[in-house]
């Protein structure tokens, strides 16, 4: 009985460490495989979609960390501008949406959080680039940026539709298999 909290703590840490490995692998897939696909497939926001699904299905904290860190790491590696800021804003929006607007753990709620987060991500990035352009006097095609932002949102919707159900099922299976049911949900989920 005394060992129970320690086992739960160890299990929680191991699971989250495995999610971090999955995170690194997802980023490699995003910048390697997905970015090598032709238009419009290369715009598929794999890291964002995974982050939203994890936030909605597994843990608000983990999902928010996923969204923030993905933007931060991609920008730190020089693979995009304004991604860190957009990631932070999108994480905030995703947490707010999952808590107060799409609070149910249904597929449609997941889709709602996904659309809201993707939209926020795109808008935040465009706003960031707008300010960035003013200060750096560089050339940015905002028409194309908005156009591609729409594609990113559509791709996110498509991604959740296609992979969302499978990933949800896998996450729930792994949770029930390796950790007791419901144990991994953290503070913020409404009961």
């Amino acid at each position, binding site marked *: 009985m005394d060992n129970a909290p320690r086992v739960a703590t160890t299990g929680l840490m191991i699971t989250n460490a495995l999610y971090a490995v999955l995170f*690194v692998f997802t980023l490699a897939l995003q910048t390697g495989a997905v970015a090598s696909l032709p238009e419009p497939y290369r715009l598929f926001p794999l890291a964002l979609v995974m982050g939203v699904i994890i936030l909605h299905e597994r843990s608000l904290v983990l999902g928010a960390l996923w969204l923030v860190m993905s933007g931060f790491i991609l920008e730190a590696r020089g693979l995009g501008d304004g991604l860190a800021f957009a990631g932070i804003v999108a994480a905030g929006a995703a947490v707010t949406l999952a808590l107060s607007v799409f609070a149910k753990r249904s597929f449609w709620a997941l889709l709602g959080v996904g659309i809201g987060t993707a939209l926020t991500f795109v808008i935040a990035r465009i706003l960031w680039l707008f300010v960035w352009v003013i200060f750096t006097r560089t050339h940015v095609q905002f028409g194309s940026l908005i156009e591609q932002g729409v594609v990113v949102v559509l791709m996110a919707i498509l991604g959740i539709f296609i992979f969302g159900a499978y990933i949800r099922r896998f996450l729930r299976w792994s949770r029930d298999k390796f950790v007791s049911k419901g144990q991994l949900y953290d503070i913020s989920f409404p009961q």
Partner: protein
Amino acid sequence: MAKFRSSSEGARKAALTTGAFLGVILVFWLLMRVSGFARFYERIEAGVVRVGTGVGNSVSRVTKPEQSLATQFLACQESTRALAINSSSYESLQREVQELRALVDYANRTEAAGIVTHVVARAVDDDATRVLIDRGTLDGLQQGSAAVIDDGVLFGMVEEVRGTTAIVRLVANAQSNIPAAVLGKQRTIGLVEGREGALLVMEFIPQDAELGNGNLVVTSGLDGLVREGLVIGLVTEVVSVESAPFQQAFIELLYEPREWTTLLVLPPPGL
């Protein structure tokens, strides 16, 4: 309103989640400082890029609409017409052809001094005009070096160099400015800048310069960073307004950047 779980238990779980997740990422980041691990991981990433590029090329072939074939045919017809016009100046162009051949030979000779690199990641932003390569300062890579593909075709410039990696800014990047020359009757000098998509624009072409569709654009080497004679693209349209001090030419790249995974980085001339 929704109720929430006990805050102390929740805070403990949140702290554990954050600690474990960020801890692994921190360990990974520290491992990436070790060149042996970084090389190993970059090899995996390069493999992922190769697989993605292969899948992407297959997808491109499958999803390419038939209409684009018709478009390509029309473009070929237009190109043939332009070539027919240019054939009248064949004699004078022959000199440029010889010069170009010499430049290509020159580019071939420089291969020995170049560093072969692989793309390990591509930019995820809207224009995708940056790639990460698996060579850095430890391999002697220098900022400002030219990255070439194929038989001396300019792919981009090394923008930033790190320990084992470097960022290459593609020619089509909006921040790209490359001194260039148009090979035609006379050697016309200008500045090639990136524009939306794969389109480039050559600015500051003197009004009296004669150039036309199909002319080859190469680097002029005037900035001292890029070698002379690296192929940039073909002129597709010349915009000449009498009141303007300069002409403008639209240039089309000869390649699809997404399809290339191996680059040769040439150090700045004189090094």
